[in-house]
């Protein structure tokens, strides 16, 4: 499979997590993988040739990190048809912010779904208040089921064609 990791961060946790996921996937030797900062990624590059892993934190009061805002706004303005895009989502937040917990990634997730993209696997989460687990460790634990979900689509698609 061809996997593109895209991350939105403000204090760097999600960037480190993205790098760790990339390393883990690359080391397994089974897939092609790249990672990119959402602020350096073109919405127009989203297509069916890859599976996407989005990882995104929450800032302000339930908002997207600033590095993800332009990407999000482009989605809103251009409303691209993403019906052949499959993605997995990992959200970072902090339960300290009760009312807005993990909403940054949810804003993005909602928009991607609205535009026709399909989320697969479990919605991953990291809560900064659970101090025992680092964001990277939580994401690495979540990763196998996301990869499994991608490969199931692969089978379905080839079975259908």
């Amino acid at each position, binding site marked *: 499979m061809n996997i593109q990791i895209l991350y939105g961060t403000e204090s760097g946790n999600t960037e480190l997590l993205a790098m760790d996921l990339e390393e883990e996937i690359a080391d397994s030797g089974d897939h092609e993988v790249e990672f990119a900062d959402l602020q350096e990624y073109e919405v127009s590059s989203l297509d069916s040739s890859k599976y996407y892993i989005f990882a995104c934190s929450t800032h302000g009061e339930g908002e997207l990190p600033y590095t993800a805002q332009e990407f999000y706004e482009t989605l809103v303005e251009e409303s691209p048809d993403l019906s052949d895009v499959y993605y997995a989502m990992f959200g970072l937040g902090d339960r300290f*912010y*009760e009312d807005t917990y993990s909403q940054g990634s949810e804003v993005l997730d909602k928009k991607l779904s609205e535009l026709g993209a399909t989320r697969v696997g479990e919605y991953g989460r990291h809560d900064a208040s659970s101090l025992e687990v680092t964001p990277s460790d939580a994401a690495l634990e979540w990763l196998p089921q996301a990869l499994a979900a991608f490969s199931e689509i692969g089978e379905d698609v080839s079975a259908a064609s």
Partner: protein
Amino acid sequence: MTTDKPLQIAVVGSGPSGCFLAQALNRKRPDDIITVFDQLAAPYGLIRYGVATDHQQTKSITRQFDRLFAKENVKFAGNIEIGADIKIEDLREQFDVVALATGRPNARQLDIPGKDLDGVYTAADLIYSLNSFRGKTDVFSTLGEHIVLVGGGNVALDILRFLIKEHTDYDGSDVNDDALEAYLGAPVKTVTVLNRSSIDEAKSDSAMLRELGSIEGVRFTSNHAPEEDLDEKSAAARRRSAVDSLVDTQTSAPRVEVAFRFSTAPEQFLGQDTLEGIQIHEAETQLRSEIYADSAITAVGFEADDKSPIYKGHEDLMRITEDSGRIEPGFYRTGWLKRGAVGTIPANRACAQGVAKEILADIDENRIHDTAEKSGLDGLRHRLAEEPISFSQWVLANEKELNLADVNRIRKKFVGQRDIIAQATTQN
């Protein structure tokens, strides 16, 4: 300068700004040798010594930097004060790139009559002791029953939270227990929080206000007038709703009463040698009045340590700018030193990334003209009376702190730097 051989890069200050800068540079130029100096033996600046002891999730950002310092080419050089142990000029001679991230650690004094009276304290007088930066704990037993807290930002709320919390509210923290015990032996009965700004312009985050509601036995009041026409999602509306729900919470027989007074400015600290009260002025009513106070704590911002030798003869290094972090090619500033003492930890990452871009451009476009061979830290060792504290040495002290933690504490911090140095340099 040839860019194919690894450069020697010095970052002065291991707070979030210095660490984010080192991180950004290391990711783009992994072969360069980056040395992060700190005058303290412990890394991480205000993350360790400023961020409140009951906000461990905020402090946990240091896990990113632990990973950074685990890299071969990123070194910590603790217990070295640039400007004193090593002059900036000497540092620049041995490093291709020098970036200052020395922060602004001094609490600003509120400049009104009576500011030097006994009983007038700054936020730093408390916070630096609660965070075990200093050992002094006598202030905690003399605060008295009636306290006026001046300031409307998040640091003021850190202080307020401390004043109204009880023992069990510190579970999982790394609070200095000597300071805490001294305070809880004679805790406050009333806190008046004076905020010059209106509730809509206050600088506090609503999440920090809402957090106060989880503390038992507190009655809150506020002088703000209702306002209906606000966008529900605006920071002002969220702040109002947070304060309103604090005020609406029924508390029978409260331990503590907290009165928020917005649009109210302190004009004068009253008393002969010791504080007795505060003269205030309310913007709305234009009324002046006096309130009684056993002590006053001001949380009105931070500023550069202008007595620090690093700035002697280099006063312009303390000038605040939103523009370039470049002082000249090869010499830069980032973080609170550059932008002033405003903004949270994440804002320092954005700032450091901008400065890293400038540094990388100067390197790539050959603007750093100096052909002399750079030896980095090795070229300076002969000037040092003591070896710097390395990251692996700090890890020894860090592990000791974690192991010493009492029940209900995440760690027991050594007070000051001496014991850290002793732990770090013990041969076992």
